[in-house]
């Protein structure tokens, strides 16, 4: 029997990847460097001589509150007010990789779980260094000092040192090999409602999203992707578009055409004037009715047993209910459309600002598009105006990078709303029939379900190789259906792969 995993145990990618990141906390580049302005305690915590506390956060804030949680995790152990902490999006580096994923990723509802220990350890380790530095200054034992609200108090003399006063010295000390974390009973921040740290910026309209990035000398681009997924550009007729005031360039890419102008409005006007012949490919005949028929056909065919529990003959069924449900392709429809800003500087050093959920992958795709090394690309993660999984994909980043290269100027690519709705990595469509048997008390006693949904794994790089052998069943396809919330005497689920050649995703 295949062990079923759920989307939330994307963590199990760890099983493929291996490794445990906590050790990296103490070997961050730049650690040990202290300056008159303070010092870096570890990969996550920087303390300024002016007592400014900066916490690096690797996860993308898209509304789920992970910036707030991350800072509170550190602050709980560091003994500081989370409201006074500055957040700095982490750069792409091994020590910031999401635990178990071998990359930086915000997805699969994994952020809190993967940060819970490591960020508390980062806070505790930093606190221990600061206390040790203070103890050294006072020629006393560390146990005679206590950290409280950004300061260290000498229990014997009552003397006080601010974190900033010892940060430079603390950064030069050897980090402790082992730190103790507070028991939950001692928490003052965790386990309680938290104020969203960027909440005030958001109500004032000063929170900066990807679409808000502005650079000197920056052009604006927008895009039309081949109306049929899988199709390609055949010929572009740019003449009318090139007559639109403000137009800079029409750039055909393989499956899309980008229009660059000095404003979004000019780019959009030019896009509307553009004539493109598309090689639509075999997808051109696919429509909603066809997708529906494909689901029906899969349902009618034999499926793979994904769950078999209990004995079909045992439950005494009084009433039977036959149900059928179907859901269409769904676009994630994040309010902020795909957007990325790319600036190519001297010696091919590249800066990218984007609301991406996958920083490591973003860096790789931009480097590949530009022919640079990933190390030459810096990803600056912005707030995301929603994402819901859409920005786990990097298509728009590649387009933005190629565009910036083509015009030799910084470019902000903004997809229009209609492009975003039409060209998602859609959440897959599904059809299901469920026969529920109710017992004499009206509660379900048997549950027989046929579920037609595409195998998602061929659509996700990390899972492309996992569709054979023991992993016959796509656990993503049967997530939720295999783990029934009802206790029934008999549960039978078959999965019917309704393969679909459209861009699909979580």
């Amino acid at each position, binding site marked *: 029997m295949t062990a079923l995993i759920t989307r939330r145990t994307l963590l199990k990618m760890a099983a493929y990847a291996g490794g445990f990141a906590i050790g990296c906390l103490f070997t961050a580049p730049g650690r040990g460097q202290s300056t008159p302005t303070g010092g870096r305690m570890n990969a996550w915590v920087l303390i300024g001589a002016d007592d400014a506390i900066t916490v690096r956060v690797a996860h993308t804030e898209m509304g789920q509150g992970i910036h707030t949680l991350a800072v509170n995790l550190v602050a709980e152990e560091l003994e500081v007010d989370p409201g006074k902490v500055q957040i700095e999006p982490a750069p792409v580096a091994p020590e910031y990789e999401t635990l178990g994923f071998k990359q930086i990723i915000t997805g699969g509802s994994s952020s809190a779980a993967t940060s819970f220990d490591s960020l508390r350890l980062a806070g505790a380790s930093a606190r221990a260094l600061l206390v040790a530095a203070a103890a050294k200054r006072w020629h006393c034992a560390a146990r005679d000092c206590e950290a409280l609200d950004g300061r260290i108090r000498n229990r014997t003399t009552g003397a006080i040192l601010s974190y900033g006063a010892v940060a430079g010295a603390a950064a030069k000390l050897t980090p402790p090999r082992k730190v103790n974390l507070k028991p939950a009973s001692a928490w003052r921040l965790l386990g309680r409602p938290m104020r*969203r740290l960027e909440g005030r910026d958001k109500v004032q309209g000063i929170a900066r999203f990807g679409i808000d990035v*502005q650079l000197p000398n920056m052009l604006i681009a927008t895009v039309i992707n081949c109306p049929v997924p899988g199709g390609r550009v055949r010929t572009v007729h740019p003449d009318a578009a090139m007559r639109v005031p403000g137009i800079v360039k029409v750039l055909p890419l393989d499956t899309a055409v980008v229009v660059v102008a000095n404003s979004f409005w000019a780019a959009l006007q030019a896009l509307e004037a553009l004539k493109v012949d598309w090689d639509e490919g075999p997808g051109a005949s696919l429509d909603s009715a066809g997708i529906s028929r494909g689901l029906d056909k899969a349902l009618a065919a034999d499926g793979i047993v994904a769950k078999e529990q209990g004995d079909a003959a045992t439950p005494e069924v009084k009433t039977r209910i036959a149900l059928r449900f179907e859901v269409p392709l769904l676009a994630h429809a994040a309010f902020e459309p795909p957007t990325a800003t790319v600036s190519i500087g001297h010696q091919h050093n590249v800066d990218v600002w984007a609301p991406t959920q996958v920083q490591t992958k973003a860096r790789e795709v931009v480097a590949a598009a530009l022919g640079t090394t990933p190390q030459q690309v810096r990803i600056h993660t912005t707030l995301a105006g929603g994402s819901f999984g859409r920005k786990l994909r990097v298509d728009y980043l590649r387009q933005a990078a190629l565009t910036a290269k083509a015009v030799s100027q910084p470019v902000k690519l903004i997809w229009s709303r209609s492009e975003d709705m039409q060209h998602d990595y859609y959440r897959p469509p599904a059809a299901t029939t469920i026969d529920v048997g109710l017992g004499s008390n009206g509660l379900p006693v048997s549950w027989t379900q046929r579920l037609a949904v595409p195998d998602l794994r061929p659509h996700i790089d990390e899972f492309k190789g996992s569709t054979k052998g023991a992993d016959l069943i796509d656990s993503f396809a049967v997530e939720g259906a295999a783990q029934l919330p009802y206790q029934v005497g008999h549960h039978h689920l078959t999965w019917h792969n309704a393969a679909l050649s459209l861009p699909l995703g979580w």
Partner: protein
Amino acid sequence: MNLSVNGIVHSIVSAPDTPLLWVLREELSLTGTKYGCGIGVCGVCTVHLDGTAAQSCAIPVAQAEGAMVTTIEGLSGSGTLHPVQQAWLDAAVSQCGYCQPGMIMATAALLKDNPRLTEEKFAAAMPVHCRCGTYLRVMRAFRALVSR
């Protein structure tokens, strides 16, 4: 062309048919007003024209000439929060926050017109969509505002 935004008159170089939204965002760097649908449907680009809520993505800038445009950046004095912003913050409405400037501007205009607005009328009149689904907290913030 001159445009009055948040009490300051700007000389505008954008083409007259450019939607007000993009003049605010790209020419005046007032990026608090957000792009959502571009066709005057979703409401996230809501600003005030002479105190009335308007969807800035669907108004050519030439049409706004002569009006007093107010954006989220100009809703209250610098550093302070407008009562609607404070209520939003207190009720922890924001999730991703992208639609919040539009929501707050729309609510401020609705309550200015009718401080005794009922919950039902507010819900029906709210022209701004929220993809995160914060509506229950929006109502919590609204109730706090009208019960003061």
